[in-house]
């Protein structure tokens, strides 16, 4: 089966789940030739050079990535044409007959969103999902400090960052994937997400809320610490309809050493 045919199967499967394909989004081939014969599929949170190396080594030449390959949201290569890092990555892809295809917008359109479900599973929160709001988890009451420590241990998260009083009691958590961090409000105690702009949103709200005597908290896991696990969900889903192809998950992993 060619990479093109695999993607056609994914589109058909999505359609059968009620998700119509929308052109013009992020989910396109980013590198390699779509007519390449697929020997195996690797899903990953982000197709870093290291992930591509591991995929090639494992014989998984179709890489299904959630985040970009070429350092910007739309994988535009303008300005990269002469960049040695970009060129080395493209050469590696060509030399190893890899194909990179992005699965972002339509993954988030699935219900449940595998990127959120994957984080919840990794965090051990699945059983606490609120029936009313798929992003809300009602955890046994704890403190912000204990919650953050438990998350860091569980995920092996070195770059985890927290806003809020560590002694604050928390229970209602909103879990957002990657950069899609839900807005902090009076409805919940703490927002957990990947990464977020430090102005124009939750950061000043959390600081203001604490000063106004209505403390709210935010835990930033890092983008890959937030979305890698969801691509394991995607690998599991692909196995349900792409039989006969080896399908694996290659985590991009925690990029930060501290």
């Amino acid at each position, binding site marked *: 089966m060619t990479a093109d045919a695999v993607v056609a199967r994914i589109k058909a499967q999505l359609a059968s789940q009620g998700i119509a394909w929308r052109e013009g989004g992020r989910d396109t081939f980013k590198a390699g030739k779509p007519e390449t014969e697929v020997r195996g599929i690797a899903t990953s949170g982000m197709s870093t050079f290291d992930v591509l190396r591991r995929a090639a080594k494992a014989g998984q030449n179709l890489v299904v990535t959630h985040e970009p390959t070429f*350092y910007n949201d739309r994988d535009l290569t303008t300005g990269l044409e002469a960049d040695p890092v970009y060129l080395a990555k493209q050469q590696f892809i060509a030399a190893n007959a890899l194909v990179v295809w992005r699965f972002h917008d339509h993954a988030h359109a699935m219900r449940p969103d595998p990127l959120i479900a994957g984080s919840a599973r990794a965090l051990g929160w699945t059983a606490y999902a609120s029936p009313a709001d798929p992003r809300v988890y009602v955890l046994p009451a704890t403190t912000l400090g204990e919650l953050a420590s438990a998350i860091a241990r569980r995920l092996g998260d070195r770059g985890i*960052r927290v806003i809020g009083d560590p002694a604050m009691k928390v229970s209602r958590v909103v879990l957002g994937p990657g950069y899609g961090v839900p807005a902090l409000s009076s409805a919940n105690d703490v927002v957990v997400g990947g990464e977020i702009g430090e102005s124009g949103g939750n950061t000043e709200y959390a600081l*203001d809320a604490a000063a106004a005597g209505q403390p709210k908290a935010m835990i930033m896991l890092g983008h890959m610490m937030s979305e890698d696990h969801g691509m394991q969900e995607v690998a599991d889903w692909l196995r349900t309809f792409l039989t006969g192809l080896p399908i694996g998950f290659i985590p991009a992993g925690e990029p930060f050493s501290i």
Partner: protein
Amino acid sequence: MAKGSRDLSRREFVAASAGVLLSAGTPRLTRLELTAQQAIDRIRARVGLPWRDTTVDTFKAGDPATVVTGIATVVMATLPALRQAAAAGRNLIVTFEPTFYSGNEDPGPRATDAVYLAKKAFIEEHRLVVWRFSDHWGARVPNEFAGALAETLGWAALRSADNPLVYSIPSTTLGALTAHVRARLGVKGSLRVIGPPDLRIRRVLVSPGTTDMPGTVTNLPQADVILSGEPREWEAVEYVLDTASTGQPKGMIAVGRLVSEEPGMRACAAWLRTIITEVPVETIATVDPYWRIA
């Protein structure tokens, strides 16, 4: 616009002259007054850049006719920063980042939120004026934020001749540089590092604020490490990771957007003092919003 500024300057001049003439013992003299609008008009006239037609650099709260008792520059006008300014009698707050939770200051669903209302009420109660100074202060050349951040790290004289954003520092390691940055910037939870601690560092790309991808790809080849404010994991972070995969390892020290912008707003206060002498101008320190698990 220039005409308006001249008119205001003339009015200020008249007020100043009256103050001098009447100062000889007259108890009810006209005090030298500067309104927030006059202060901003002076900034516009002196910033050294044509004022943009479309800009976020506008009043965000308060009455521009308010007489200024003092000016506080801040990276972000959070409620704690506003309280600190009010307590110090600084009623004009010059902020680099937004105040009301979005780039266009539209609180959206938070318009009825108790936290937003408490912030609005505090501003009104203390007759504060909040004005944003982002597009223009951020556009000065050389970049005020990069220069001030480098100066805070003791590198004022080390700017490289070939690239104004790259500093040639005495040879060190990524680990030692991280310790230096941590100590000098007072960064806590926001500090994140990529790269081995023994990575040799001679040239530093200084990239405060939001570290964008074009700036990283263009400049990082000329440096060993990027000192970043807020990198995106799918942009500068991925690029730095991939450089290591090509056998040309680069480091990244991210200190957070707010922490990285503090020196630039301290420099802004220093610059304001050179053009506004009627009232005290100070900066309010940024507190790293993040903490880390010990």
